[in-house]
């Protein structure tokens, strides 16, 4: 049995759009998603903007319920949020009044970890994300990349089985993003977590994922799942070596082709909406 199973999951919202009030239409964000993710797997979901990627993650995080279909986690349906899943947000979601260490402890406070142990655990995860010595800084004293490292450490600290990441590196500059991608792969290999990573970046998807699920534009469906196996990675290549390899380029082109029509369609939809 797979770790995570999406079984024809559909999610629709009643439209709040005033222009459509007469119609009282429903907005279908996700339409019949089928996807299986194995334990310990790193799966990237990539799609054009507005395709319901974040809705997919909200459903898995238990923050919303599917309109139809079901989501199984370890064979049991997801009924609500829980500490077996940790979410990393694009906007970091750090508590600005707490230090880096305090933010990591925040995750542990929800579990039953005793106070003394919390600080030790938090420090351990601060070290893991490479922020040793920055524990007493407040978020506004940290760079964007450092903040996201703290957020990742917070999600890892309470030891969830699954890490859900919602475009976590989208707000970072290119260099920082690349170094955090390497860091994330290293952490994933060390901890053996199941990772579901959402992005709109094709390179990021190819670089990080063992499998890349490409979504269609609205309503979101899984168009195709591309298994990525980079032989040069086995040889220890990272960073630019890996990105410039011919097989990397081939995967990138494959996913780009899959996405291309969808992006064009999404833009068309947006235009139509704006002109209504």
């Amino acid at each position, binding site marked *: 049995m797979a770790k995570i199973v999406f079984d024809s999951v559909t999610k629709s919202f009643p439209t709040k759009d005033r222009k459509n009030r007469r119609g009282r239409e429903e907005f279908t964000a996700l339409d019949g998603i089928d996807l299986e993710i194995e334990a310990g797997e790193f799966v990237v979901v990539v799609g054009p903007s507005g395709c319901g990627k974040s809705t997919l993650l909200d459903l898995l995080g238990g923050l919303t319920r599917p309109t139809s279909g079901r989501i199984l986690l370890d064979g049991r349906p997801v009924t609500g949020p*829980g500490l077996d*899943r940790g979410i990393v947000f694009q906007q970091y979601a750090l508590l600005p009044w707490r230090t880096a260490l305090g933010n990591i402890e925040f995750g542990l406070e929800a579990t039953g970890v005793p106070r003394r142990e919390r600080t030790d655990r938090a420090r351990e995860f601060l070290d893991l994300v490479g922020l040793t010595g920055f524990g007493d800084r*407040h978020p506004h004293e940290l760079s964007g990349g450092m903040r996201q490292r703290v957020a990742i450490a917070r999600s890892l600290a309470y030891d969830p089985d699954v890490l859900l990441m919602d475009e976590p590196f989208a707000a970072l500059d290119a260099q920082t993003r690349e170094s955090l991608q390497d860091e994330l792969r290293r952490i994933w290999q060390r901890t053996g977590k199941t990772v579901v990573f959402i992005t709109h970046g094709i390179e990021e998807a190819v670089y990080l994922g063992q499998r890349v699920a490409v979504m269609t534009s609205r309503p979101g469906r899984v168009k195709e799942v591309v298994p990525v196996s980079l032989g040069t990675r086995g040889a220890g290549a990272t960073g630019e070596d890996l990105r410039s390899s011919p097989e990397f380029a081939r995967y990138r082109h494959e996913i780009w082709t899959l996405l291309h029509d969808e992006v064009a369609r999404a833009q068309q939809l947006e235009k139509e909406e704006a002109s209504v």
Partner: protein
Amino acid sequence: MSTGTDTTVAALAGLAPPVDEAPAVRKTAPAPAPAKPTPVPAAPRAVSVGRLGRLLRAAGLRSAAILALLALWETAPRLGLVDATFLPPVSEVAEAWWELLADGQLGEHTGASLIRSFGGFGIAVVVAVPLGLLIGWYRPVAALLGPLLEVFRNTAALALLPVFVLLLGIGETSKVSIVVYACVWPILLNTISAVGNADPTLVKLARSMDLSTPRLFQKVILPASVPAIFTGIRLAGAVSILVLVAAEMIGAKAGLGYLINASQYNFAIPQMYAGIVTISAIGVAFNQLLVTIERRLSLWRVPA
């Protein structure tokens, strides 16, 4: 309401001097020249000559406006620019103030005023903060009550003073009540909007971690709201003194407002100014205290 209008106008007219006085003093820090240089000798080596000069200059700058005001106040009546009967020189006022202090009158009136205004202010904080958190959390309730609260907030508390007197008599109850009433609105409205403005991502984070609602409040909403709540509390602090003085001018046997009013009736003009100066000093000190607490509680804030 028509019977009350006269009293209200009188109260507002009587209130005019302290209102005019307060901002002039409030622009600068309360403890000016003497307080500043004291920390300097504590670390004589660390402080270079340049820094000492800068500190002195800063202290001078901060107290300059107040000193100028005092100088003007002293000289203008003496030179006959204003009628010394209605505006006695500041030295005479200081003398009167000292006498009032020595014979215990000032202490008595100040005590009466402080108990009323702090009492009312304290009750308002205790009531309005939890109530605001509750209303702010339930969005529909906030939307429902919003317009009503705006009406109450924008109805000058002093305009309601006659109503309070009618309902509660002229004793302590009506005075403390009007202070409570006037203080509740700024705190309540600021608290409600603080809860509404709490970062939705943080709320989502807490939800994703399956935090219970009380925990969510304790760990996320409340700390995120502290700065905005404190802005309301600081407004209420100023309002508490303002409203109280006016209330004391109408029907009271003690209190600084009474002192000012009674002195005016008895033509004890220096005593009247002594009362006014005391009120403005209390106002500045109270505000400074609240600012200090606010800074303590919101150290984490991003420096603007």
